[in-house]
C-alpha cells in the first residue's frame, strides 16, 4: 500500500485523498476495498465509513455496488464485509465450466425456441473448443460434442472468436465468412458458415462478452444450411435474432453488458 501516514484515517486505515482529474467514486471505492481487505472481514458499514471518512449513506451505496460486481461479500449474520471472489478472479480467464453453468439456461432456451442444436465455444490456441452443447430438440440420436475442437477459419464459432481475439488485430486474412472479414464480423456482431466446414451444414454464431466487455466465447446454432439461410445465403432473421439475443443474455449474466 502506497499511502502516506498523513493519508490514513482515524483508525489507521487509508482515507480518501482526492487528486484533481480523477474520478471520485472510483477512488472512494478503491479506498473502501483497501479497508475491507485490511480488516479481514471484521468491519460493518459504520466502521468502514468512519475509516474512509465518508458519510454512511455514501459508503453504503458504494458497498452495494461493490457487492453487486462481486468485489466484496457480506456476511448475512453479522453484516460485515469481506473481499469478494470477483477480486480474486481479476486477471484470470473465465473458467469454462463456470461459463457452461452460467450459460446453460439461455442455451437450453435457444435450442428449444430455434429447434436447432446449440454450441458454445472458446478459443484455445489456434482452435475453437466446444465447451457446451445442447441437442437439437427432436429426440433423435445425438452425441455430446463437449471438448471437440473446430477449425477457426471455416466455422462460425471460430470466426467470431478469431475476429475478437486480441492477437487478430489488425485484420487477419482468410478468417471472414466469405463475404465478411473480421472487422465486419466485429462490427455487425455475428458470423456464419454455410457448408465450408461440413457440406450442407451451417452455423450462425455471436460473441459472448465477459466482465469488462471482452469476448470470452461464441454461442451459435447449427443445422442444415437450407434451414438456417435463405436462397441468397442470408441468415434467417428470426434465427439470427434468437442467436444474438441469447448471446447478449449470457453476456449480461457474465456482467459483460448486452452487446
Amino acid at each position, binding site marked *: 500500500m502506497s499511502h502516506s501516514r498523513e493519508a490514513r484515517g482515524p483508525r489507521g486505515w487509508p482515507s480518501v485523498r482526492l487528486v484533481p482529474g480523477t474520478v471520485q467514486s472510483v477512488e472512494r471505492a478503491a479506498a473502501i476495498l483497501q479497508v475491507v481487505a485490511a480488516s479481514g472481514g471484521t468491519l460493518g458499514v459504520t466502521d468502514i465509513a468512519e475509516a474512509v471518512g465518508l458519510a454512511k449513506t455514501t459508503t453504503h451505496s458504494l458497498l452495494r455496488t461493490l457487492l453487486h460486481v462481486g468485489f466484496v461479500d457480506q456476511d448475512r449474520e453479522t453484516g460485515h464485509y469481506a473481499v469478494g471472489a470477483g477480486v480474486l478472479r481479476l486477471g484470470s480467464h473465465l473458467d469454462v465450466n463456470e461459463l457452461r453453468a452460467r450459460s446453460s439456461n439461455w442455451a437450453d432456451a435457444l435450442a428449444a425456441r430455434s429447434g436447432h442444436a446449440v454450441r458454445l465455444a472458446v478459443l484455445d490456441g489456434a482452435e475453437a473448443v466446444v465447451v457446451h452443447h445442447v*441437442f437439437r430438440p427432436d429426440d433423435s440420436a*445425438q452425441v455430446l460434442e463437449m471438448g471437440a475442437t473446430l477449425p477457426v477459419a471455416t466455422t462460425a464459432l471460430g470466426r467470431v472468436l478469431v475476429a475478437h481475439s486480441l492477437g487478430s488485430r489488425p485484420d487477419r486474412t482468410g478468417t471472414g465468412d466469405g463475404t465478411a472479414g473480421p472487422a465486419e464480423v466485429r462490427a455487425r456482431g455475428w458470423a456464419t458458415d454455410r457448408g465450408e466446414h461440413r457440406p450442407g451444414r451451417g452455423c450462425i454464431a455471436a460473441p459472448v462478452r465477459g466482465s469488462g466487455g471482452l469476448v470470452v466465447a461464441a454461442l451459435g446454432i447449427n443445422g442444415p444450411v437450407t434451414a438456417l439461410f435463405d436462397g441468397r445465403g442470408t441468415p434467417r432473421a428470426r434465427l439470427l435474432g434468437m442467436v444474438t439475443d441469447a448471446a447478449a443474455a449470457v453476456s449480461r449474466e457474465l456482467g459483460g453488458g448486452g452487446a
Partner: protein
Amino acid sequence: MVAVRQREHRQHFPRPGWVEHDPMEIWANTRRTAAQVLADVGGSGDVVALGIANQRETTVVWDRDTGRPVTRALVWQDTRTADLVSELAARPDAPLVAERSGMAIAGYFSGPRLRWILDAVPRARERAERGELLFGTMETWLIWNLTGGPDGGVHVTDVTNASRTLLMDVRTCRWDPDLLDFFGIPAAMLPEIRPSVGVLGVATALSPGLPIAGALGDQQAALFGQACFAPGEAKCTYGTGSFLLQNTGTELVHTRSGSISTVAYQLAGEPVHYALEGSIAVAGALVQWLRDGLGLIATAPEVETLARTVTDNGGCYVVPAFSGLLAPHWRGEARGLVAGLTSYVTKGHLARAVLEATGWQTRDVVQAMAADSGLSLPALRVDGGMTTNNLLMQFVADALDTPVVRPMVGETVSLGAAYAAGLAVGVWSDIEALRRNWHRAAQWTPTAARAQALSAEYPKWERAVQLSIAWGAP
C-alpha cells in the same frame, strides 16, 4: 417458460440442528411473486390455473380464526425431534408406523414435528382438539391463504405431501386413526387429503376465479415435470442434496433395501401412482464445502476444472456423511471421512473424489431400488444445478451403466406443478401430451470399459461407507 419471479425467504437457526421458516413471510412472498408473474404476462387473462410445488415435510400449525401460526414452521432439515423419534421408535407398537405409512419412523417426516409443536406450545393440544388450530405442510398453508385464509380458506393437502407425514395409510390414502393415536395427533386439525391433479380451490387472494388445480411435493413435482409416468422411469434431482424417484405404478412396493415407498401423484378420479424414493443428504453441498470450507475453488463449477487436472481419484474416497447418511443406509450416526490418503493425492484427486461421491451415492440408491422394485432402469433423467457438470454426469452414467439424460427445461419442479394444474383444467388432454413435451437436451452414454472398471472399484466405496458408519458409532 414466459415469466419467472423468485424471492428468497429467511432461514432461522435458533439452536444447533433447529431450522425454521416464518410462514407469514413465505405467504407474503408467494402472494407478491405470484402477483408479479401475473403482471409480467399481462394480467390473469391467459392464466387458466395455478399449480403449487413445495418443500416437503415442513410443518406449520396455525390459528384458524386469526390465521397466525402458533410458532415458526419446522423445516424439513430440522433435527430437533431426534430424541422424540428414538422414544417413539422404542415403543412395542412402533412397527405399525412402517406397516401403515410405508415409511420407518424418522425425524425427517412431518408427523414427529407436529407432535413436537403440540407438546411445546402451551395449550396447543387442547386447542387443536377443539378444532381451533390447523396443521399443514407448506402447500396446505398456501392454499388455505390463497383461498381466503380465516375468511373461508380451504383446508386441504395433496396426497404426495400427506404421504410424508407418517400419519397416512399409504394404501387407502386416508389419515389412519391408529397412527394418529400413536403420535398423539388430534384428527380435528388435519386437512382433507386430495389428489395432486384436480381443482383444490379458487385463489381469490390473487385473482377472482383462478383455480388452484395442482399441488405436489417438490420431488414428486420434478418426477411429473420429467414426464416419468411409466413404471421404471426415474429422475434424479442434483441440488444441495439429491433425490432419486422411480415410478413404480399403481401397486405399492414393499421396501427392504433402504429405499422408501412414497406416493408419486394422483389424478382426480384415478388410482394413486407410487414411487420409490432415495434421498441423498449431501451432493452439491460437498462441492460447496470444497469451495467454502476448504477454499480450493472459487465457484462450484470450477470443481470440474480442478478434477480434470488429474485422470483418476488417486485412490481417494470422500464419504460426505456430514450429518449421517440417508438412503439406503439410514445411519444418523455416520460421519464424513476422506479415505485412502497418500502423499500422491493432490487437490485434483480430492475434487474428483468429491464428484465421484455423488455418483457412488447414486449407485447405492439405484441398487437398493432395483432390489426393492425389481424394475430395471432404462435411463436416468436428471435435473438440478449439478447437471451442467459434464464430468459428473458421465461418471454417473458409467457408475450405473445406464444412460443419463437431461431434459430441455431444467426447472422441472415448477414445470411439474404447471403440468399438474394444466392437466386438471384441460390445457393438456392427457399425460401422453405431457410426455410429448419432454425433449432431450443432452445424453451421457456409458462406455463398457469404464462401467466395468467402476464396478470393480465400487466395493472400495462401500468399504469407505462402512468406515464412516463405524467412525460415528457411539
